[in-house]
C-alpha cells in the first residue's frame, strides 16, 4: 500500500468536496487579481518583494520547496522520485528564482536558463531581443531548437516536464494531492489532442507574425510594408491576445485555479505549446514505458494517479509497451503499481518509431 495515498478519496481537499470548490474559487480570484489588477502591488511593496511579480515568484518558489518536501515524504521511497523532485526544487530555486535576481543585481536583465520558447512565448519578440545581450539570445535559440528537441529525443519530455519546468514543478509538488482528479475518459483525450496542438500552432503563428512585422517595419518604405501592411496592423493585437488567452488565462488562471477540481496538469495536458512540441518528438524518441506481459491485475492504481489522464491500465492489461505524447514521465504510475508491471525506460526500438503504441482506447 502507498501510505501516502491513503484516504485520498476521504480527504475533503482532494475529493472535490465544497472545500475544493472554495479553494478553486480562491485560486481563480487570486490569479485574476494578480494578472489584471494592481491589487497586490502595494502589498508586495510593503513586504519588500519588488513588484507584484516579485511577490508571486517568491510565493511560487516557497510552494515548490515546501510541497516538494511533502512530496518526498509521500513518494520519496525510490531514487527516481527523490532525484526528480530534488531536481525540480533546484531548478526553481536556482534557475527561476535566485539567478535572475543575482543577474539584476549586476545590472544584467534577469534571465531564466530553464525557460524555453514556446512556453516562454516572448523569447523571440523583438522587444525581448532588444533588451537582452547577444549570448542570451543565442541561448534562447539553441535552447528551443537544439537542446529541447535533442534531450527530448533521447530522454523523453520528462527531462523538462517533471525534472526542470516551473509549471511542472508546481504541479508535481503543490498539485500532488490532486493528480487523481485528471479525467481518464476518451472524451478528455480527444479534446486534449485538439486543444494542445491548436495552442502550439497559435504560438508559432504569433511569433512569426510579431517577428515578421518587426522586420517589415524596420524596412519602412520598401515594397514589403506596402504589400503586406496587414502584418504590422495585426501584430500588436495578436500578441496581446496570445498573452491574454494563453499566457494569463490558460496557464495561470485556469491552469492553477482548477487544480482542486481537474487535477494539477490542466495547463500541461491541454494547453502547453512546449509540451505539444516535445510530445511530437517523444513519439519518435527513445523514451517509453515498458509493460511486463500478463502481470497486470487491472487494479487501476496507475490510471488513477496519472496526472496526465493517461489510461495506463489499458496498455498494461493489453501487454503493450507504450509511448504517449502526453506522458510527462513523472513515474508515478510505475511507483504506485502494486505488481511492478511498469518501467520507464530510454531504449532504442526502431520497430515502434512514431507508433503511438498500437492501442489507444481498446476494449475487449
Amino acid at each position, binding site marked *: *500500500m*502507498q*501510505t501516502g*495515498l*491513503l*484516504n*485520498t*478519496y*476521504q*480527504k475533503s481537499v482532494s475529493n472535490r468536496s465544497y472545500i475544493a470548490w472554495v479553494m478553486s474559487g480562491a485560486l481563480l480570484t487570486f490569479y485574476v487579481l494578480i494578472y489584471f489588477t494592481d491589487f497586490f502591488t502595494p502589498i508586495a511593496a510593503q513586504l519588500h518583494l519588488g513588484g507584484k511579480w516579485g511577490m508571486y515568484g517568491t510565493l511560487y518558489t516557497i510552494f515548490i520547496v515546501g510541497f516538494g518536501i511533502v512530496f518526498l515524504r509521500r513518494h520519496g*521511497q*525510490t*531514487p*527516481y522520485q527523490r*532525484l526528480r523532485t530534488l531536481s525540480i526544487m533546484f531548478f526553481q530555486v536556482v534557475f527561476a528564482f535566485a539567478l535572475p535576481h543575482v543577474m539584476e543585481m549586476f545590472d544584467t536583465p534577469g534571465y531564466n536558463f530553464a525557460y524555453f520558447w514556446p512556453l516562454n512565448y516572448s523569447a523571440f519578440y523583438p522587444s525581448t531581443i532588444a533588451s537582452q545581450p547577444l549570448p542570451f539570445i543565442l541561448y534562447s535559440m539553441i535552447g528551443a531548437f537544439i537542446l529541447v528537441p535533442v534531450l527530448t529525443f533521447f530522454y523523453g519530455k520528462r527531462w523538462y516536464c517533471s525534472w526542470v519546468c516551473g509549471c511542472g514543478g508546481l504541479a508535481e509538488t503543490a498539485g500532488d494531492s490532486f493528480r*487523481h482528479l485528471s479525467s481518464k*475518459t*476518451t472524451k478528455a483525450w480527444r479534446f486534449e489532442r485538439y486543444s494542445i496542438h491548436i495552442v502550439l500552432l497559435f504560438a508559432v503563428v504569433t511569433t512569426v507574425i510579431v517577428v515578421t512585422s518587426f522586420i517589415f517595419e524596420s524596412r519602412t518604405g520598401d515594397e514589403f510594408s506596402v504589400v503586406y501592411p496587414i502584418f504590422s496592423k495585426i501584430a500588436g493585437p495578436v500578441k496581446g491576445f496570445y498573452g491574454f488567452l494563453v499566457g494569463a488565462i490558460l496557464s495561470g488562471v485556469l491552469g492553477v485555479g482548477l487544480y482542486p477540481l481537474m487535477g494539477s496538469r490542466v495547463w500541461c495536458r491541454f494547453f502547453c505549446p512546449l509540451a505539444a512540441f516535445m510530445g511530437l518528438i517523444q513519439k519518435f524518441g527513445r523514451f517509453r514505458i515498458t509493460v*511486463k*506481459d*500478463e*502481470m*497486470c*491485475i*487491472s*487494479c*487501476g*492504481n496507475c*490510471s*488513477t494517479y496519472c496526472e496526465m489522464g493517461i489510461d495506463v*491500465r489499458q496498455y498494461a*492489461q493489453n501487454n503493450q509497451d507504450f509511448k504517449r505524447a502526453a506522458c510527462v514521465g513523472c*513515474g508515478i504510475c*510505475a*511507483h504506485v503499481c*502494486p*505488481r*511492478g508491471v511498469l*518501467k*520507464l*525506460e530510454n531504449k532504442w526500438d526502431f520497430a515502434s518509431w512514431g507508433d503511438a503504441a498500437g492501442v489507444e*482506447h481498446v*476494449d*475487449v
Partner: protein
Amino acid sequence: MHYVIIGNGVAGINAAGSVRMRDSESKITIISSESDHFFSRTALMYVFCGQMSAEDVEPYERDLYARTNYDRVRGRVASVDSGANKLTLTSGEVVSFDSLLIASGSVPFMVDYPGIDLDGVGNFVTWQNLEWLTEQAKTARKAIIVGGGLIGIESLEILHLAGIKTTMVVREDSFWPIAFSKPEGDMITEHVRNHGAEMMLATETDEIVGENGSVTGLKTKDGQTLEADLIIFAIGVIPQTEFLKDSGIELSERGGIIVDEKLATNVPDIWAAGDCTAVVWFNGVRRPEQLWYTGRDQGKVAGFNMLATESERKDYKRKTFYNSAKFFDIEYTTAGYVNFNFDGERDWYQCDSIKETSQRITYMPDGAVIGFNMLGSRWDHRPLVKWVEEKRDIKWVLEHLHEACFDEEFSPKFKVTEPAPALT
C-alpha cells in the same frame, strides 16, 4: 444465437469480448449477482483504503455494455437445466440460452467453527464484503484475521492502516509455507510486526466466542482467548458452484467444474472459465487456478471456442507458473516452481535483511533451474520464465540474473553476493 454468461468478472467479461469481436450480431447476456459493472476484485483493498473510488477500479469505461451491446441481468442464478438449455434465477425468472459460459468465480472456504454465524464475522472477497467491512471498520477496535494467505495479509494491512489493532492468526509455524521457506516467511512476519500489526504463528482456531449475537473474541486450540470485535476468515476460496449441484454438470470433489482442454464441460454447449473451473496442472493434478491472469486467459479461450467450429477450437494452454503479490511494502515475484518439492531439488538463496530483499532459486541436481522466488525488489518474470523453460544452468543464471531486474531507474545495481553452488 444467444450467448449467456454467468459472471461479470474477469473471465466472464473477457469471454464476452472474445465472442463480440467475431460476432457483432448475436445476443450476449451477462448475469451477475454482485455488481452492475465489471470491477477488479484484486483492487478491493484500495477501495477500502480510499486510495481509489468504485469507478477507478473498473477496468473499462462505463459505456462498455452499451457500446458492445451486452445485455445485463442483475440477479442470482439458482439452477441450470442443462437438458433444456435454460437457467432459473432466484427471482424465478427463466433465461434460455443457446450457449452458456459459467464464470462464477469463488466463494470463501469456511469451516463450521462454533460461533461462525456471529455478527462481526465475515470475509473479504466480494463487493458486498467490502461494503460490510467498511461499515464494521467504523466501530471496530480489535480485529483478527484467520488464515495466512494473500487475501489474509491484504486484510491485515488494510485494517491495520485503518487504525484497528489487528492480529493475524496463522496455523503454520511460518508465513505462507506453500510459497515460502522459513527465512522468507520470517522476513515477512518481521516486516509486518515492524509496521505494528501482529502475526501469531502456530496458532489454531478452536471456536469463536460472542455475546448477544456479536463476536467478542476467538479461542485458540492452546486455550488462549483473543479479544476481537471483528474477525475475517481468509482460509482460502473454493469454486462458487453450489447452484450447479443438480445440473448434470460434472464437478470435482471440491466443487470445481471439470473441463477439458477446450474448457468445455461434460454438457454440450456449456463452457466454464476462471476460478470456478478445475483444470489439469503441469503435474497432472486437477484443481482450480485462482488467479487474475489465468481467469482472463481462460475467459478468452472459452469465448473463442463457444463461437468456433469444432476443428477451429483452441486448447487452453497452461503456462509456466508465475505470479506476483505484495506484503505490506514488500513486493514479491515468483516464476517457475519453488517449494513444489521435486525429488533432489536444491536452493540457492541470498538475502539482505536491511533492505528486506531476498532471492531464492531452485534447481535440480544437474544444475537446471526450475524456479525463482524474489522478494523486496522488482523482477521481470519474462526472462525468469524463459530460463526455467530453457532449463538454464544455475551458474549461467546467476551470471545473467541482473538482466531480469525491473527496479525503477537509478536504483542501486543488483549484485549476486552468495557464491554459485558447486554441482556434484
